[in-house]
């Protein structure tokens, strides 16, 4: 009988998860395709794409559009984000990571949609931001919707968000394995059999949509005949290390531009427009900086398409403008700009190599290696980037070369900066994933969410006898003493009161008692209680010293255990 029930339950889960993965895969994939199409359409209409720019035989209009489109785009983005979202900032993969890692909810759906719209406007009007972040977030929104259905499947939110994200990446790069791995590497950050099957189905669905139904063109097609010289692998490793430095510089630049923007005494709503204006003015001389830069990405793998001077100029312009656009509040990701910066840098390094006449296998492999070596530490996804190379180029030699660069880049960048830009952003908001998911989850729970009302509140005017009666009534072996203003004075234990009837109660207060406040997280509480043997801990308002309540130790341990169990279940669940 029991096995029948288990069989039915497991069959139910398998069917529901498969259907869910198919549905989410389709939705996220269609959303991603629609997003790309909409950006392309806007780029054509708004004279951002070179193909539309060259066909306009009106220099005045072209100049005006180049400057005004990103500026007005900035104004619209500023309005959307500041007036229509609750968070007052664009949402992105970091929010999806936070929701999954801490098992909390995504920010509200309206903010999510408005943020997506804002990234569409940003990309459509030529801001120097990436398109994959918003696509990943759209996948996460789809997953979040699914998790609200009453499907009675454990960890449904985690799985559903991972499915949406996997399909988005799979569609965006025509790379189903990379989509699947990205969901595990960046969003789930662990491997579980329960999530693996649905994300694979969703990723494959995304691939079917992108490749078979819509036949989207690949991001890049390159021709590579293989690595000609053994010593080049050493060069790839060195390239990886150099890319790590550049990646760290880029991430620091992003962070410092954000900080600078916050200090700037200017209405936040207008800040994106300033970045847009900067993009427009620079684009007058250097149109490659507009938008994602698909054309520049392609040219980078053609020998001699750029001179070294042009490469350096475009590299710096792209880094500064991306930092400016993201720091000043345009909505979008860092993935595509990183790809472009990386590939330009790779081409530059190859030019140098060629200049000093070191025999090599050509520009393609150096460009691709640097592209991935720079991107991987930024998004914290070494495996994904290696697989993207493999799936996009179908070239094994190129993949191995990229792997060497990526690994070294990640090693160094991790030491210098952290696991990814998302982790650094989250850490700055108090979610530190670097010491493990359990700690981050414990940090995310405030002790006020636990029951703290069941305790004995003793007044400093009480006699010992009165206090003992009170403690007996509540059934506690310790109580908190407050004065007539409810100011916390300390804790006394029954055992210390017995036989001390002549004493004033304030003389019997225990000195070694840990005290928590309204900001204490579960993690901090657990640390504070190390070596503590008692029944309950007082919580005192840090601003005025008033007693809030006492949280029983058993509550803390139960809450801790629940999180530990949840994580263990999620990471080890079969289906």
């Amino acid at each position: 009988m029991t096995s029948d029930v288990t069989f039915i339950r497991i069959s139910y889960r398998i069917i529901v998860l498969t259907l869910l993965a198919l549905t989410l895969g389709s939705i996220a994939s269609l959303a991603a395709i629609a997003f790309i199409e909409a950006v392309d359409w806007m780029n054509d209409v708004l004279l951002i794409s070179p193909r539309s720019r060259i066909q306009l035989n009106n220099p005045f209009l072209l100049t005006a559009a180049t400057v005004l489109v990103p500026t007005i785009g900035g104004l619209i983005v500023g309005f959307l984000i500041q007036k229509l979202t609750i968070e007052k900032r664009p949402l992105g993969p970091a929010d999806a990571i936070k929701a999954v890692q801490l098992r909390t909810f995504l920010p509200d759906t309206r903010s999510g949609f408005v943020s997506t719209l804002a990234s569409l406007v940003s990309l459509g009007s030529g801001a120097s931001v990436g398109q994959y972040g918003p696509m990943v977030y759209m996948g996460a929104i789809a997953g979040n919707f699914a998790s609200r259905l009453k499907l009675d499947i454990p960890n449904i939110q985690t799985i559903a968000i991972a499915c949406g994200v996997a399909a988005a990446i799979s569609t965006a790069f025509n790379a189903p394995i990379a989509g699947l791995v990205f969901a595990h590497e960046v969003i789930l950050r662990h491997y579980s059999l329960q999530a693996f099957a649905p994300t694979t189905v969703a990723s494959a669905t995304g691939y079917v949509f992108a490749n078979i139904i819509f036949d989207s063109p690949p991001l890049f097609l390159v021709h590579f005949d293989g690595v000609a010289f053994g010593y080049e692998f050493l060069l790839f490793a060195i390239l990886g290390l150099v890319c790590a430095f550049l990646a760290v510089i880029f991430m620091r630049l992003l962070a410092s531009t954000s900080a600078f923007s916050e200090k700037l005494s200017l209405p936040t709503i207008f800040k994106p427009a300033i970045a847009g204006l900067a993009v427009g003015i620079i684009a007058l001389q250097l149109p490659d900086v507009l938008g994602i830069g698909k054309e520049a990405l392609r040219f980078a793998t053609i020998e001699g398409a750029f001179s070294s001077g042009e490469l350096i100029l475009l590299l710096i312009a792209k880094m500064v403008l991306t930092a400016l656009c993201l720091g000043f509040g345009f909505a979008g990701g860092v993935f595509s700009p990183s790809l472009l910066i990386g590939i330009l840098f790779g081409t530059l390094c190859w030019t140098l190599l060629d200049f000093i006449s070191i025999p090599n296998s050509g520009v393609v492999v150096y460009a691709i290696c640097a592209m991935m070596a720079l991107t991987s530490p930024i998004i914290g996804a070494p495996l994904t980037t290696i697989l993207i190379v493999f799936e996009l180029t179908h070239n094994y030699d190129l993949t191995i070369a990229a792997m060497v660069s990526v690994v070294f880049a990640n090693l160094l960048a991790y030491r210098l900066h952290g696991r990814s830009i998302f982790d650094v952003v989250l850490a700055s908001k108090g979610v530190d994933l670097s010491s493990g998911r359990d700690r981050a989850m414990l940090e995310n729970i405030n002790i006020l969410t636990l029951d703290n009302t069941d305790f004995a509140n003793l007044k400093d005017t009480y006699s010992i006898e009165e206090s003992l009666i009170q403690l007996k009534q509540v059934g506690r072996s310790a109580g908190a003493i407050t004065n007539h203003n409810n100011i916390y004075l300390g804790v006394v234990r029954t055992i210390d009161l017995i036989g001390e009837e002549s004493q004033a109660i304030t003389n019997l207060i225990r000195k070694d008692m840990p005290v928590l406040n309204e900001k204490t997280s579960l993690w901090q509480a657990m640390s504070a209680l190390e070596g503590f043997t008692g029944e309950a801990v007082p919580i005192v308002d840090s601003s005025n010293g008033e007693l809030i309540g006492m949280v029983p130790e058993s509550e803390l341990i139960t809450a801790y255990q629940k999180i530990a169990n949840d994580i263990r279940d999620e990471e080890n669940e079969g289906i």
Partner: protein
Amino acid sequence: MKAFNHFFIFLLCSYFSTTLLYGQSELTIATWGGSYENAQQTALFQPFEVATGTLVNTQKYSGDLAILNSDLLPDIIDMTLGDALIACDKKLIHKLDYKQILIKDKKHENPKSDFVKHSILPCGIAHLSYSTLIAYDEREFTGEKPQTISDFFDIKRFPGKRALNKSPSDILEWALIAEGVPIDQIYDLLSTERGMRIAFRRLDSIRDEIIWWDNPRQAASLLSTGKAVMASGYNGRFFSAQLDGAPITMIWDAQIIDWNVWVIPKQKDSNSKTVLKNNFIRFVIKAENMAKLAEIIPYGPSRKSALRRIGLHAEQGFSMRDQLPTATHHLDRALFRDANWYANTQNLRKTRFWDWLNQNKMGDAKEDN
């Protein structure tokens, strides 16, 4: 049947009305000469003459918009799509009166839907697809044969003169494809200053080996006379040359597919002349006539029902459908020309092209012509 009767009566009326008023009526059609025009004569013009008694004259045309400003303005022109878009934009050609041209018949309740997408334009009707591609002289390459557009640019492996159309069409696309740019991205990349630069750089690499042609008929003859080892040209003409015994082979890699469009130049017309022009277009875009043309010369009709009717070549007996540029085995690496892009970048391309040619002259006196 009823519809056919109406149509027949209509044709008779228009024939008699024009002949009564003007005696023998005439139409001048500007078209491209050579084997293409011969095929049109057999499949379209002569049957039209027989059916209506109108005399069809032809005027030589090799794709220059200057014809629209000349004194000898033809009645109808068989124009490339890009030129037709420019001419329409400049209001040099009439908007077509599709009520008169696309007549419902028994099979086609809505004749528009029988045409492939985008072939019904405001100022013209795209009637056939043709391919511009590279062909080579078999006698010159007895060993390894050139197979891709990169081979065309490889003068070390495949030495010899290359004959190219003296215009900034096709060659820029080919130069970029030879650089390894995916076909899907050609126009995106050619739209940048850098793309143009790379394309001309690639052309530079073969500049001493180029022979320019102006008239499409020259392409095949330059090959058969041994003056060039490879040449760009139109698939139909190469096909005809092959039938005539020329030892040439077409390279379908990076073929560029484009459309020809029937247009009516703007001029003051009597009503009857307008009717006659509409009648002509209506006649030549009938599915059976389009199919008949494609059975002589392998250019793809724009009507789906015409495609279905294409049978065997009258003399050679092989399927003509397999010879079309749009036959599936030719489409793997085909580039569909972006006619709007062509129309809008014409001046720019011309300027760049002539600058490049003149540079050539100044830098190197060996230019072949």
